[in-house]
């Protein structure tokens, strides 16, 4: 363990993060909401803490080991929650308790999009902008951004990158240099965000709303500056733009980059995970539309399709945008949509959930087991795009699911212990651990009314989910700390 080096990087990254307090100041000045003070103060506080951490050890140069990488990522994300909550705490509109401020910040960074604030429409622009911005930073990963911008991280960059990016297979780099890979990913992310903002603008939003919503669309966050969320606009065009870009955000950004570089849309189609993702979304949309029509929830096929596709994509990609909401939909639909979010998008995307590829692998492994019952001595490798997947990765996926469900169960039970009813409890944990946002029961619209202890549990669930269980749980194991 290389604690000095960990401290140095933490300090450096906090310094970098403190700079992100400045754009909201700009927004405050531009819109004259007179609300720049909390951000300026937070900027100074976070920068000072970062400098205090960094300065004493800024000369320490050692290679970052793999395990240091996990430590940096886990500790930094916890710091982010607190540092990111500072302006919300300092602000007088809204007035938030410490618990609520941290919950809101973590919900933003982890791109969950669950909120404890009611009355968003009346808040200062700068605060609203800040909520959207932290989602955007957290989406592709602020650590990946640090890797892209701070070449000092060097080799250590790889271990940081690995600990923050989602997915079971992380050894495939776009370029030999990790810095370059991280830059490309952020580049694609920024380009898609810009495209999305333009789309929203054309669909009729104003500049502020376009950018804000583009931030939370590409990061699959789901915050909106309005209490009514996307429903505020009640526009089919806005819904369409949101659906398309949420869907894109749910695909791997590595894949986006490859397609962009080759100038060949066929690239998407050659990717097994993307195919599975596409079909899954398509089939569920058709099913949900049909059921909604049959139950006469909406009048016409068009409206059914519009609301079905928005909510299905929103839940599958763990964004959590809503127009009408789906909690009151008939039959199995609310539960179905909650289950969709459990799957999530593709590995290497900004979505939460357990990722399509993991399900693909375990399902194929399950089919192989079935075959083996009939042909006990058959050699049946699990294949992906015609290539056998190493057994180690499949075991890793199996281990991931085991941990995922254990953590899920424990957190749900804890929530119920604090007096939350069953449907609210499991849907709250599902929506937090998968970084989605809306739940069922008491947390359908927001998380304001559950007890403080429950909010903390949800906060933990969001962090655990964003770092894909292992990175955080690892710190609790003796193996990690043993020398």
């Amino acid at each position, binding site marked *: 363990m290389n604690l000095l080096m960990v401290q140095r990087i933490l300090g450096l990254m906090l310094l970098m993060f403190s700079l992100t307090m400045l754009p909201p100041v700009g927004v405050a000045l531009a819109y004259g909401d007179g609300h720049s003070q909390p951000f300026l103060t937070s900027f100074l506080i976070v920068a000072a803490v970062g400098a205090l951490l960094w300065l004493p050890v800024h000369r320490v*140069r050692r290679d970052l080991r793999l395990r240091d990488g996990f430590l940096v990522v886990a500790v930094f994300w916890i710091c982010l929650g607190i540092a990111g909550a500072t302006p919300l705490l300092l602000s007088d509109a809204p007035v938030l308790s410490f618990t609520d401020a941290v919950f809101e910040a973590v919900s933003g960074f982890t791109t969950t999009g669950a909120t404890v604030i009611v009355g968003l429409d009346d808040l200062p622009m700068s605060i609203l902008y800040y909520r959207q911005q932290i989602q955007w930073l957290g989406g592709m990963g602020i650590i990946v951004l640090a890797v892209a911008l701070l*070449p000092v991280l060097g*080799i250590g960059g*790889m271990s940081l990158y690995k600990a923050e990016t989602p997915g079971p297979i992380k*050894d495939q*780099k776009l*370029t*030999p240099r990790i810095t370059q890979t991280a830059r490309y990913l952020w580049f694609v992310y920024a380009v898609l965000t810009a495209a999305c903002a333009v789309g929203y603008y054309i669909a009729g939003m104003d500049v502020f709303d376009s950018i804000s919503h583009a931030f939370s669309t590409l990061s699959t966050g789901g915050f909106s500056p309005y209490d009514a969320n996307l429903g505020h606009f009640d526009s089919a065009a806005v819904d369409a733009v949101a659906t398309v870009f949420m869907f894109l955000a749910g695909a791997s950004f590595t894949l986006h980059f490859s397609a962009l570089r080759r100038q060949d849309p066929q690239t998407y189609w050659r990717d097994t995970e993307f195919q599975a993702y596409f079909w899954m979304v398509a089939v569920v949309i058709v099913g949900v539309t049909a059921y909604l029509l049959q139950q006469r929830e909406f009048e016409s096929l068009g409206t059914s399709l519009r609301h079905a596709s928005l909510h299905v994509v929103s839940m599958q990609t763990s964004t959590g945008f809503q127009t009408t909401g789906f909690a009151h939909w008939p039959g199995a639909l609310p539960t179905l949509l909650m289950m969709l979010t459990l799957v999530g998008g593709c590995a290497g995307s900004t979505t939460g959930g357990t990722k399509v590829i993991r399900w693909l692998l375990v399902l194929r492994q399950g089919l192989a087991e079935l075959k083996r019952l009939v042909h006990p001595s058959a050699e049946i490798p699990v294949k992906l795009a015609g290539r056998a997947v190493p057994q180690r990765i499949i075991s890793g996926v199996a281990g991931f699911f085991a941990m995922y469900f254990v953590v899920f169960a424990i957190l749900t039970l804890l929530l119920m212990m604090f007096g939350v009813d069953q449907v609210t409890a499991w849907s709250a944990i599902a929506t937090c651990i998968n970084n989605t946002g809306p739940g069922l029961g008491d947390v359908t619209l927001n998380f304001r009314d559950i007890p403080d202890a429950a909010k903390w549990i949800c906060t933990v669930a969001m962090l655990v989910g964003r770092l894909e269980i292992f990175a955080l749980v690892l710190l609790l194991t003796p193996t990690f700390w043993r020398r």
Partner: protein
Amino acid sequence: MKIIILGAGQVGSTAAQQLSREQANDVTVVDTRDEVLRDLQDRLDIRTVSGNAAHPAVLEAAGGGGADMIVALTSSDEVNMIACQIAWTLFRTPTKIARIRSGDYHHRPELFGDAAIPVDLAISPEQLVTDYVERLIRYPGALQVLDFADGRARLVGMRALKGGKLVGHQLRELRTHIPNREVRVAAIYRGGQNVKPEGDTIIAEHDEVFFVAARDDMRAMMKELHTEEAPVRRVVIAGAGNIGFRLARALEDRAQVKLIERNAERARRAAETLRNTLVLVGDAADEELLLEENIDDTDVFVSLTNAEEANILSAMLAKRLGARRVMALINKPSYAELMEGGKIDIAISPQTITIGALLAHVRRGDVVRVHSLRRGAAEAMEAIVHADSRNAPVAGKRIDQIDLPEGTTIGAVVRGEQVIMAHHDTVIEADDHVILFLTDRRHVEDVGRLFQAGTRA
């Protein structure tokens, strides 16, 4: 530069490590073993591709299309050659380097060329090691001999012994001892400590002294550190493999060579080809055999078998039985550092030698080579001064005007055939080969940047 390295063996992974440390290089490593690649990827900032290095699809996945150089270091000569062929045919890769072990290929230089097998440089580790050992044997007392500027200047490491004229004297007296000789002491290693060589430094017995000298001035300086040593007369080589056999053939006309080989069949084949070498069938770690063959009268004992542990043991045994200088072929760098200077005089590391030669060609431009001195005492670098070094103008400057990183000194300048020892007022000219010494390995890159040609950003 975009470099593809094929084969993640010892040489391949060390080359990847050294090259990826320089920011300008993008390194991709190809190998068939997933675990090895995973380990490498965890340690280094490189890309790895798993698959057969000679398959076009694998080369393409490794970025063959845009690569500037391909370095084929797999364990198979044939795979290396085919990989170069494919890279040339499909991607027109400009530089192709391959490790070719088998001497058969090297005997036919016409095989390699754009019209035949497109390998720009065929590296033969066996030949390199043989040359290295032969050079060590030619200079009795030398612990390390490194060539600079194609051999015009050499760096020699040797232990100071009682009877050497400079031993017990200050370094500055060197000028009166051997006037008009171009010699510069680069590093002194005393009892495991690095001593900075200055005018008033006194050379003590058992110091390991590294000096750089023009080729013709080497012997004069060596006499300063040793009593004049008789040239090597009697050599015992253990192991009649590729290296042992070649070494015996290179030495047999100048010295009395005995070659010990355990395998009777191989011994017979060696005996058939060699003319003046006495080939013995037996175990090099057999005390009786060694004594029988007058090991106590042997000038040099070299063990060159495939088993490094056996090499270490037989060399230690030979030393105890009275061989004057013993060398052992040791692959693992950690073993080499452990043994060197203790029970064994010289550890020969094929890896280090191969990598040195390899990197010398990879870094054709500015920094030609970087050698580590024994036990990492210091790094010695050779860099070429370009007239067009726009962003780092070294040419035309006096040495004391050049902003060198801390702990870095310019030792010598090779200008054409002339070797000039550097003084603070020596003016560096374009096309000079500058030899530098660095006490800190981390500055290698900084120095490289100083000499970088202006054409490369």
